[in-house]
């Protein structure tokens, strides 16, 4: 099945949902990272800890929490189901699992890059009459963009490798919710080593490219 239709389908599905999850979390991640880097507010450290939890908790536990939140028996799951939105055993479940698991990596990376922007520049921009939004988009983001892109690449790479939370929330349904890591697991379980190794090769190449790009960006951001 080397580069068969199924291989392409699984790879493209994983890339597409991974990309979508990164795009979805990007604005929230950037906003939260800015709040962490630049503002002091009540319960800040508690919120920071909660955001970082998926990084250290077993992914299956996070998946179970997501299942409890979005399952049809939960108030939110029921409410969504009544409006025709199904999360569980659906590509949307894959997207949510990927988003939740990769969010902390994005926030940590972007927060660091915001912290490295000299706040004096933002203050001077304010004295020059720039609004908060203009300062953010014209000064802060351009100066932190390498860290933001690196964080997004890291989050995307993490999303591609997501397994535990996805299998609990979205299941492992071929051509429906099956991602690269779920398919590898499936092929190994059924003794289909050839397909497993093909997908393994793809994941190694993808992970290498994205992590290498991310590290390169972070290094060049530090130099400037």
């Amino acid at each position: 099945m080397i580069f068969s239709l199924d291989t392409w389908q699984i790879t493209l599905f994983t890339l597409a949902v991974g990309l979508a999850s990164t795009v979805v979390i990007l604005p929230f991640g950037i906003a939260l990272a800015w709040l962490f880097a630049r503002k002091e507010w009540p319960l800040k450290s508690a919120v920071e800890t909660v955001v970082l939890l998926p990084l250290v908790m077993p992914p299956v536990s996070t998946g179970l929490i997501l299942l409890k939140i979005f399952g049809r028996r939960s108030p939110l799951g029921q409410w969504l189901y009544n409006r025709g939105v199904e999360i569980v055993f659906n590509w949307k479940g894959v997207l949510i699992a990927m988003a939740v698991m990769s969010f902390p990596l994005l926030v940590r990376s972007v927060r660091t890059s915001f912290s490295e922007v000299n706040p004096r520049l933002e203050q001077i921009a304010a004295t020059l009459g720039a609004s908060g939004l203009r300062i953010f988009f014209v000064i802060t983001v351009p100066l932190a963009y390498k860290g933001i892109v690196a964080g997004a690449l890291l989050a995307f790479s993490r999303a591609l490798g997501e397994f535990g939370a996805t299998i609990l929330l979205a299941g492992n349904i071929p051509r429906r919710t099956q991602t690269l890591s779920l398919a590898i697991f499936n092929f190994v379980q059924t003794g289909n080593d050839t397909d497993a190794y093909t997908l393994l090769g793809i994941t190694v190449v993808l992970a290498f490219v994205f992590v290498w790009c991310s590290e390169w960006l972070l290094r060049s951001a530090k130099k400037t």
Partner: protein
Amino acid sequence: MLLRCRIPLSDFELDIDASFAARVTAIFGPSGSGKTTLLDAIAGLKEITAGEIEIEGKILFSSTRRINCSPQERGVGYVPQEGALFPHLSVRQNILFGARRNDAAGQTRAATLDHVVDVLEIRSLLDRPVTQLSGGESQRVALARAILCGPQLLLLDEPLAALDIGLKEKILPYLARVRDEFRLPIIYVTHNMTEVLTLADWVLMIRRGRLIAQGVPKELFHSTTAIASMDENEIENVFRVRMVESDRAGGRSKVRTEKGLELYIPYLQKLADPIFQVRLSADDILIGTQPLEGLSAGNIIPGKVRDIESLADQAVLTVEAGETFYVRLTPAAVARLQLRQESPVFLIIKARSFRLV
């Protein structure tokens, strides 16, 4: 201008109460005395516990009336010590960054840009990345950016501190030009007496957050209070002089001060303006108690000690010798020479110790 504010800092409280109406007001004091904090407070970048700040009739902050204008609304142009140019923007983008606020002037903006660029001589730099500018160029660009945002007040935080002596002497005239061309009220933070004497009409002396004296610079610096406040700072003598003659072969020029004292300074070609200022560090004057001969120094001036201000490890003498001179010695030298008020002395000054302001 009214400046009344209280700001808690890590090891002391900044507590200033001053009212002044000068065009250029210097805030003068040693490092760590709260000068930058005060500028930040005026610009709205530092929280004030209590007080009132009023500039040109506009109240920027009043704790009693609950007014606290945002930095955007205050209408101040701020040039911080490090310039703080936006590194990802070109020189042109930097100096036009705040010009939107000045757009009420509409069509006149371009003319204003031209004017500022010409006064500060930065036209050739406009399309360069700011990362390629030298220290002096960066400061001029930061100055242009602050002026172009149409401020009611210019705040300059030690704009020459990061520059070496050669560059300082080149940038100082630009600051004088800004003062004269744009006629903006300026608050100028410095710990250099020459800059105060060259640029300011009024000086606020602060130390550890307290206003210890204020007044006209030349008068204030002649008072013992002023000298006592300078401790680790450089003490300089500044004289307004007129060229008498220049001796190229001899490598020196003769000048005459306003009080008629003749001094030898390093050779100068004839200047466009025959009246100029020279400065002399208080550390570059030797004191003798006997008339001396056979010395290489170009200036040997008889005088009388008017005052001796003893500080921890130094003594500052005020000597009347046709002009008032400040001389800094060690307390040991004062004791060895048995100097006291009215002691006759001779000031020994090399011509090359004088520098052009």
